[in-house]
């Protein structure tokens, strides 16, 4: 039975995951566990796509399952889909949605990416957009195989300027939950998104610039203080936007120091591997929204410039 045949099992739903990296694979493989859901995946990595088509998409670690996913590197192959889930790194959002938007002309597209500003870019290309924030994480260990490091919840809500209906949001959240990825539909998902944004923007670049693990950033009074100062700037911007945070990011920072002492922030991993970071969607996002609201964010601005300087240093002769 091919993947399209699964739709015959009931009132089917077709979902395309755009960007089948670590996080995209977690969603795609879990959704494929539901008989009524036909899952497509679009990615530029040909070896990963080929492996998925040949052997299915395998999750190990915190999950142990194989999902039947139709994967492609050619956006023209994508059929019309009810939902899109964009899971690329934030710097590839524009390119990825421009390539795939045709598949979602009658559907709705959710972002489950890091930072802020992704939904705005998606909305330039599609009519109905869903704001999303997700906590599960993993890593691609070989083509077609993804290690799930942590399980966690996903929050979805209509993206206010070009919203999907709450009914659509709920339908997608139920589909994710049915597949084993717990998701909640909210009327206003900004609180969840900004809580995670402020946490990440306050901790990731400090780890990246000092090369300290999260626990040690928190242990050193000097760097811990800097984290709080970044949190305070982020909270001021969220306040000006009228967003009520889900929880206090400063408390999340201390909680993470207990449960993830040895964790190296993903931005530190990017820096050590000399890969482009998501600074523009994190601290850069806080700066952009702050400037629109007339809220100064001098420390986030400086941190953004320093990380960009660091990225530039990898292109220096040495």
């Amino acid at each position, binding site marked *: 039975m091919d993947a399209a045949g699964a739709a015959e099992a009931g009132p089917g739903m077709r979902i395309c995951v755009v960007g089948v990296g670590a996080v995209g694979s977690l969603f795609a493989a879990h959704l494929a566990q539901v008989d009524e859901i036909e899952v497509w995946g679009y990615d530029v990595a040909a070896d990963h796509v080929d492996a998925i088509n040949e052997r299915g998409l395998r999750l190990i670690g915190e999950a142990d399952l194989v999902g039947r996913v139709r994967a492609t590197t050619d956006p023209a192959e994508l059929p019309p889909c009810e939902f899109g889930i964009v899971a690329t790194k934030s710097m590839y959002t524009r390119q990825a949605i421009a390539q795939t938007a045709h598949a979602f002309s009658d559907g709705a597209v959710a972002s489950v990416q890091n930072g802020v500003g992704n939904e705005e870019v998606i909305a330039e290309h599609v009519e109905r957009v869903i704001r999303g924030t997700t906590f599960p994480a993993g890593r691609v260990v070989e083509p077609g195989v993804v290690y799930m490091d942590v399980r966690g919840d996903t929050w979805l809500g209509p993206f206010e300027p070009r919203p999907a209906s709450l009914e659509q949001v709920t339908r997608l959240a139920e589909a994710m939950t049915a597949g084993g990825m717990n998701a909640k539909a909210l009327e206003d998902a900004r609180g969840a998104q900004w809580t995670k944004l402020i946490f990440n923007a306050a901790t990731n670049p*400090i780890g990246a*610039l*000092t*090369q*300290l693990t999260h*626990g*040690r*950033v928190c*242990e*050193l009074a*000097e*760097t811990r*203080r*800097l984290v709080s*100062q970044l949190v305070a700037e982020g909270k001021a911007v969220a306040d000006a936007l009228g967003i009520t945070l889900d929880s206090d990011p400063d408390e999340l920072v201390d909680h993470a*120091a*207990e*449960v993830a*002492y*040895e964790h190296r922030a993903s931005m530190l991993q990017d820096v050590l591997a000399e890969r482009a970071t998501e600074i523009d969607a994190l601290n850069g996002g806080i700066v952009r929204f702050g400037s629109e609201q007339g809220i100064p964010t*001098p*420390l986030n*601005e*400086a*941190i953004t*410039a*320093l990380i*960009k*300087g*660091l990225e*530039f*240093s990898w292109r*220096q*002769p040495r």
Partner: protein
Amino acid sequence: MAAERIARVCVIGAGTIGSLLAAHLSRVAEVSVLTRRPEHAAALAREGLRVSGKSELVGRVRASDDAGELPPFELGIIAVKATELEQVAARLAGLARGATMMTIQNGLGAEEVVARHGDWPLISSVTFMSGTRHSDTHVEYELDTATWLGPWARTGTSMDTVEAVARLINESGLRAEAFTDLVPAQWSKLIFNSAVNSVAALTGLPHVALFADEDALGPVVRRLVDEGKAVAAAAGVELYEDPWEMNLLAVARGETNRSDYAHVPSMLEDVLAHRQTEVDFIAGAVVREAARLGIDVPLTAAVHRLIRGREASWTLRAQPKRVPA
């Protein structure tokens, strides 16, 4: 020491700056060198001290790792890093009575440290020359910019002495200029280093044109400079040069506007070598002065904390993983 000729000089610390001074001065004076490591002293005594680049010479020096074995001298130049100054000044305590001592460290506060260990008349200096140390006995002379000297007011050092030292350095083939009050120049360089060295240390970038680019690091460097200028103003210091203009000039200079020849600030060298940096004496000095004067310097404090964190990343051992209660 009056204005008479300085015949004997001791250079304390033979890093890049100390080596450049010792080798050049050996052309015009008897030079001894105090090193930290005995094998360094032995190599200098055996091979001499070679300079390449802007000068080509091999200087003959006496060298020892034992301060007590140094021959007498009229001028001591303390050229160790600010981080080692306290320890070195303590080794000199009780020695070289009557000599004049000159500090050449980055940042602020070197004179106070030395003055705690002896009543030598002190000369303040800041240097803009640079080089690369290839080995214990070979240093390359790169930027042949000047060293500026001035009397440290609290020891009443005479201007005649300062001028005699400047003359000696100029005769040796290096460049020096005597100032009646060095404080404005010291602060200009302090603020320049607080901005440029900190950004270089954190980004891994040598001092390239990006440091003055309004769409890149320019705004950060400018704000660090502005914070430093506010502190200088509150301290009543009228700067000798505008540190932002110094930044523009440095990145426009032939050696630095081509990124492959850009100057690597010493703090970046320290970070790359996982050595303790001078940040506490540079950005840290601006933060301390700001606190004393009631000025807010949030960005300077942030880069100070980040560099301290970076140092901790290679000095701290991994802590045992804590388990939630």
